[in-house]
């Protein structure tokens, strides 16, 4: 490809694919005010069903499309019926978390069934290209464009002329009023999930054919791109989602043309952040539209936290402190070291997501900033490791807060989307800023942990070090929660409008929360870097962000002790039961789903 026309065609084709995902997201958001993070997993499932159909069953193309659409729709209906409908009367965060859990479960099931290795998905179309003006276009491009246009047309007819379509629109505009007209909202939900899943599944199959390759990493990327396109077009706005998708496709394609392939996603997420900050209602939202989600308070499950007496905590801490004095295996210490590192991240997230109510889905980025800062400080500037780690913490606090600050005015779901995007941006900047971060090669030969000139190499010393750091951070945070500042944080979480009316500056308090949280996470990342001795842009990925969120919900949002208990449980229990690594993410997903359904306040309760 060389000509601008080629890039334009490519952008529009890719945009069509995004549109199939984004339209489904918009339909679901319209009806249930929910961002369906499982949309990408359905896309993944669609791609693999397509593979089974084409490669194993040798179905002809039209039949393949029908098979994929129907099978994906069934998956969508199952998700709606068993994953989300039981949560109808739960707090607002519950369905969002459930879709995250569902996406983990689906992705892992696909990976376990088909192995993580990429597979080729042939398109069965002749490999010819036609000259169009200065560019070329192939049969697959036409197929994708055709599927996109046909779907849009069918959807338009459905929404405009069918009774169920009217019910969908009415429910999207006023759920209670629609019910009072006799609309069965459950059927509407089923309809939109079915349609969204069918479109998403076909989209995944088409993408697989377009690149002649499918793998399990497609899922998260698809969700992210769909969400970007949907938010750019205005959440819940179906035509907006189509235009947002085409725009996204073009922006990416031109970005690639100018800067190279590895910049594709960076442009997507920058576009998202710019739109979120400047026009959070999307490019096409009119002024009359209500501000997105006036949801406060209800986002966090209210509960009475479990009271643990101080002496019990002291005894438990003492027990863990003296543990290495007993003949425990290296393996146990190693596991607990991982738990303490995760605990620091969870402390950070429980403060940000639980105490001040900003549910961050990109928390691993703070680890990455801390890790890279500490590694580079010690390697490039020969800063002693102990100081370098503190430097990592400070850097993470400063940079993390600065990066998130443009989205301080957002609420609810939009905070989650923005943090997710910022997390991705951090990882992409690390990948592309080769002169500083060494790009895809990563940083190797990071000096081991040391303190005041003494190397901490034995597992026992590393254990004590990481445990002590975590305990200090936990004590600080516990102190913070009982202070006036902690109360202000919770006031903002419970009702930001009322908090503002009482003179609390949201920006200042959100900054303080992210500074403290960023520091704790940065320290954790810094220690990890020196422990691993090698890091790259994928060491701290979205899976870790979600794991941390699961930990925090398991322990109880905002609950300091809960964050640590949750870390030990989620790191320790799989080890205890010797669960193979590839099943772990599946387990985390299932734990998240069960928690949301049966104990949304977590083990120790929210604070």
């Amino acid at each position, binding site marked *: 490809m060389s000509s601008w026309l080629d890039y334009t065609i490519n952008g529009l084709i890719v945009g069509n694919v995004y549109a199939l995902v984004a339209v489904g997201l918009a339909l679901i958001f319209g009806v249930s005010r929910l961002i369906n993070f499982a949309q990408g997993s359905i896309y993944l499932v669609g791609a693999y069903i397509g593979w089974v159909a084409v490669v194993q069953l040798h179905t002809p193309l039209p039949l393949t499309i029908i098979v994929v659409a129907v099978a994906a729709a069934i998956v969508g209906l199952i998700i709606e019926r068993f994953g989300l409908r039981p949560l109808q009367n739960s707090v607002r965060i519950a369905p969002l978390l459930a879709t995250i859990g569902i996406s983990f479960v689906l992705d892992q099931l696909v990976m376990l069934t088909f192995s993580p290795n990429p597979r080729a998905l042939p398109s069965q179309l002749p490999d010819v290209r036609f000259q169009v003006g200065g560019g070329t276009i192939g049969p697959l491009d036409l197929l994708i464009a055709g599927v996109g246009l046909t779907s849009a047309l069918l959807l338009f007819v459905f929404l405009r002329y069918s*009774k169920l379509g*009217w*019910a969908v*629109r*009415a429910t999207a*505009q*006023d759920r*209670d*009023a*629609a*019910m*009072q*007209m*006799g*609309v*069965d*909202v459950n059927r509407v939900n089923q309809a939109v999930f079915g349609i969204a899943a069918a479109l998403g599944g076909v989209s995944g199959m088409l993408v697989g054919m377009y690149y002649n390759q499918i793998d399990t990493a497609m899922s998260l990327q698809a969700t992210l791109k769909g969400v970007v396109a949907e938010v750019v077009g205005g959440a819940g706005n179906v035509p907006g989602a189509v235009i947002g998708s085409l725009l996204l496709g073009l922006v990416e394609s031109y970005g690639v043309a100018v800067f190279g392939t590895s910049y594709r996603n960076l442009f997507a997420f920058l576009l998202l952040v710019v739109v979120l900050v400047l026009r959070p209602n999307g490019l096409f939202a009119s002024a*009359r539209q209500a501000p997105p989600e006036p949801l406060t308070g209800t986002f966090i499950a209210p509960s009475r936290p479990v009271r643990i007496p101080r002496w019990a905590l002291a005894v438990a801490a003492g027990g863990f402190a003296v543990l290495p004095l007993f003949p425990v295996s290296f393996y146990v210490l190693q596991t607990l070291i991982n738990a303490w590192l995760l605990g620091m991240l969870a402390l950070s997230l429980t403060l940000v997501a639980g105490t001040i109510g900003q549910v961050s889905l990109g928390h691993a980025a703070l680890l990455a900033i801390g890790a890279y800062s500490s590694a580079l400080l010690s390697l490039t500037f020969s800063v002693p490791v102990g100081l370098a780690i503190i430097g990592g913490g400070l850097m993470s606090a400063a940079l993390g807060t600065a990066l998130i600050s443009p989205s301080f005015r957002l609420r609810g779901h939009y905070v989650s989307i923005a943090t997710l995007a910022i997390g991705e941006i951090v990882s992409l900047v690390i990948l592309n800023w080769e002169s500083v971060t060494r790009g895809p090669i990563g940083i190797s030969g990071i000096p081991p942990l040391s303190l005041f000139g003494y190397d901490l190499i034995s597992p026992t010393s590393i254990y004590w070090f990481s445990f002590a750091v975590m305990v200090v951070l936990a004590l600080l945070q516990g102190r913070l929660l009982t202070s006036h500042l902690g109360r202000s944080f919770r006031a903002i979480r419970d009702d930001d409008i009322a908090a503002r009316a009482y003179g609390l500056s949201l920006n200042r308090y959100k900054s303080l929360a992210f500074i403290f949280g960023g520091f704790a996470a940065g320290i954790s990342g810094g220690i990890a870097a020196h422990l691993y001795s090698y890091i790259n842009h994928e060491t701290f990925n979205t899976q870790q962000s979600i794991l941390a969120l699961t930990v925090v919900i398991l322990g109880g949002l905002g609950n300091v002790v809960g964050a640590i208990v949750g870390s030990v449980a989620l790191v320790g229990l799989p080890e205890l039961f010797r669960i193979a690594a590839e099943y772990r993410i599946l387990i985390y997903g299932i734990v998240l789903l069960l928690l949301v359904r049966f104990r949304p306040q977590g083990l120790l309760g929210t604070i």
Partner: protein
Amino acid sequence: MTNASAEPLLALTGVNTFYGQAQVHFDLSISVTRGHIVCLLGGNASGKSTTMKIILGLVKPRSGEVSFDGASLLGLSTPQIVRRGIASVPEARRLFADMSVRENILMGAFVRNDREAIAQDLDKMLTLFPKLGQRLSQRAGSLSGGEQQMVAMARALMSRPRMIVMDEPTMGLSPLYVDRVLELIRTINQEGVSVFMVEQNASLALEIAHEAYVLQTGKIVLSGPARALKDDPRIRDAYLGGSEAA
């Protein structure tokens, strides 16, 4: 209570409702006689709108019975209740703002499947609400408050209900429209539709109602034929919330 000789169309008996710990209704009993306009009066936070929500199945009472035409409504979903023949004009109209006026009115017939009769009823609505004729393809959200109220009433009638429940139908309307709306409620009622309306504006509501109840912090403190209540000084007391012992 009312002078209902036959079985009432709608009956709430001994209803207790809670929002969390807070009790909203205390042993509430209300009945709507077939063919009557019954009005529930009360100030802010008296539990009026919750009464509407109980009838429509949007809120479930903790105890008590709600029956329509002799059959219990408890345990039914809102759509099922609507199918039994109860239509609603919600507080602040609640139109589907981005759908056209025509689509809004037709949404009222969502539970019906008789296409031709629906088309005839639409025409009928346009004779009842002539102003809406020129507005049919306009976005419902772009209409004035009074016009929106007309759409909401037409929408409710489209299901051919046996009873319409209305939540403060005159709220926020210009005086001109208030009279018009009251007139229309009377017309609708004369065509055989029972009406249960919740109102703050007692004097207006009592003009058209057959019976009325006065609700004060969740308890019925007064009830009887509207004509009798009109001159009752206690109405004023109940309103201003002055006398707890009323």
